């Protein structure tokens, strides 16, 4: 579905991604793990068109998209849930959701968008209860759900999730992950960045390990979890624990 080859991307004059290749198949959940500054968010932002690709190819549904503008990429069926939620806190929850369908909005689409809104509210009942409230009044977990819901409003085929658990209490993180599970049941394709590598590897089908802008490992999550290097670097196991 998504196929990236030799992607190079820069922030300012610093080369962040140094030739990254990866792919995501339909109905797959793929996770990227790696330390801070490895280039994970840059990768998602480059796919979404927010950062221009300096070199390389991004193909989505067999179509080259690396030169398209962000709104056109959204119309192709890719939605980004950005790091730190980035909701419009002074607008109501319902308006935030409607904005999610902005790029596809037209008068004739209205019934369909209302149906989408309905299905999103079904997925997140809490948002229905709070739909008239200001988004800024929501708790952190609710804001994250709103951010995911807003992305779903563009009816994406692929959803890019950037650190959905950031700054949330463990119990809320559980909830967010259950939501991602639910996306899987709805046959959604997900590319997920997550600091909580253990949960991400438990949830996803496949994973890539990113270090300093390069991919150093790829594999089924089951295999990655068994890799000692990953255990040590990302799953927080010390040598002793591995020995025991």
């Amino acid at each position, binding site marked *: 579905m998504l*196929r990236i*080859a*030799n992607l190079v991307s820069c922030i300012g004059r610093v080369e962040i991604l*140094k*030739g990254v*290749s*990866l*792919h995501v*198949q339909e109905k797959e959940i793929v996770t990227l793990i790696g330390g801070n500054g490895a280039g994970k968010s840059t990768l998602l932002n480059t796919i979404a068109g927010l950062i221009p690709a300096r070199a390389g190819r991004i193909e989505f549904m067999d179509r080259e998209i690396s030169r398209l503008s962000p709104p056109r990429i959204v119309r192709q069926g890719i939605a980004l849930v950005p790091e730190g939620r980035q909701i419009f806190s002074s607008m109501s929850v319902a308006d935030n959701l409607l904005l999610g369908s902005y790029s596809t909005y037209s008068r004739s689409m209205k019934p369909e968008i209302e149906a989408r809104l309905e299905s999103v509210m079904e997925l997140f009942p809490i948002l229905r209860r709070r739909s008239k409230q200001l988004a800024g009044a929501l708790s952190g977990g609710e804001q994250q759900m709103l951010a995911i819901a807003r992305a779903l409003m563009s009816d994406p085929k692929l959803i890019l999730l950037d650190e959905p658990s950031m700054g949330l209490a463990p119990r809320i993180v559980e909830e967010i992950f259950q939501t991602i599970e639910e996306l899987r049941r709805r046959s959604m394709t997900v590319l997920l960045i997550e600091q909580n590598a253990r949960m991400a590897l438990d949830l996803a089908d496949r994973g*890539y*390990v990113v*270090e300093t802008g*390069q*991919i*150093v*490992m*790829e*594999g089924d999550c089951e*295999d990655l979890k*068994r*890799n*000692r*290097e990953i255990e040590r670097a990302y799953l927080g196991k010390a*040598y002793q624990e591995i020995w025991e």
Partner: protein
Amino acid sequence: MPIIDSKHESLSRSEIRQMQLERLQAILNRIVRNVAHYQQSFKSAEILPTDIRSLFDIQKLPLIDRRTLLDNIPYDMFAVPLREVVRLHPSRAGLRDPVVIGHTKNDILVWTQLKARGFSAANITQNDMVQVYLDYALFPGAVVAHYGAEQLGACVTPLYSMPIPQQIEIMRNYRTTVLICTPTRALHIVRYMREREIDPKQLFLRAVVFVGESWALRTQRQVEDFLFVDVFGNYGVSEICIPGVAYECEAHNGLHLSEDHFIAEIINPDTGEVLPPGRRGELVLTTLTREAFPLIRFRTGDVTAIHEEECSCGRTFLRMEPVARRADDMLVVEGVEFLPSEIGMVIANMEHVTSNYRLIIQREGTRDRLEVEVEITPDIFIDQLGPLEALRERIEEDIFDLLRIKPIIKLVEPQSLEGKEHVVDLRENDH
């Protein structure tokens, strides 16, 4: 018959290429950080992992061979610390300075899965009684073949040290349906049964899986015709995994390369130039997923050709021809791999002989016979038989210690081997 790992075995060609590129780039990024040899060799070739932007670019990377591995024994080619290694195998058991191959937990699991994949192409299922006639001590692939068959739910009987009559007896009594063995052993069984006039219809065999050695098509036909079975070939390399690299499906149309774990190239052994599909040359393998002992562009020494045409079985992996001969000097006699120079070393350590020697290998029935001609120096060339006989026995013992094959030693007059070839392999016409 169903494809067990259809998620990988029937990917489209473009999906396979994407996966190979990703895995190649990842392993290059990894080894440049962890393996000093690659760090240096890439540096002297003035190449960075980021220069590899397509599978075609792999040709820019330097080739390695068994010599490279020997220069780095025991652990210098390992890409992980030893504490992460769970199994060590010498690449050629019994020989001096064997290369040590390490496997992490994941490596072993992948290898076992590859084996299971290969066996399921031979339609081994839980309904099968599998007899493994491989040397569990000397042949690293035996254990993996064993667990690979078990993973498919088959009932596995490990029976190495049993002599042939008992093997056949057990085949009959246990109702063995699949025999896993080297081609040489399969021929031994065929010959034994033919000599003793044992009716193959008494057996319940339906398939024989060849592992561990190359074989001639004639051997395959002989076993098929006599035992009324399907023969499935499996291919591997002892420095990577043997078997486990390629496997034959029911179409009997060559061996499918597990391209999700390996990249295969065919080169001209003399120039190193990469040859197009269909051309015969030396097989070069790159491991894509090995954690402990990754090899980049490893010259296997095996001569084969790769074919791109689709296979009727539905698998999309490319197919290689069964290996019929080797591009380097490596000899395989009775399943034992060795270099002629290793015998030369034994002879060089002797007194009263020159450094000239000649190996003559021929097939006697189904067995290989190794004859070693050694040139003696004039100082022992006397009429006494005693010292000559003692010398002959010493050479024979030392070679037996090295190879575990009993050679026939012939002492010849001084200078009679001057300028002659070191190896005369009379078996080649068989292939």
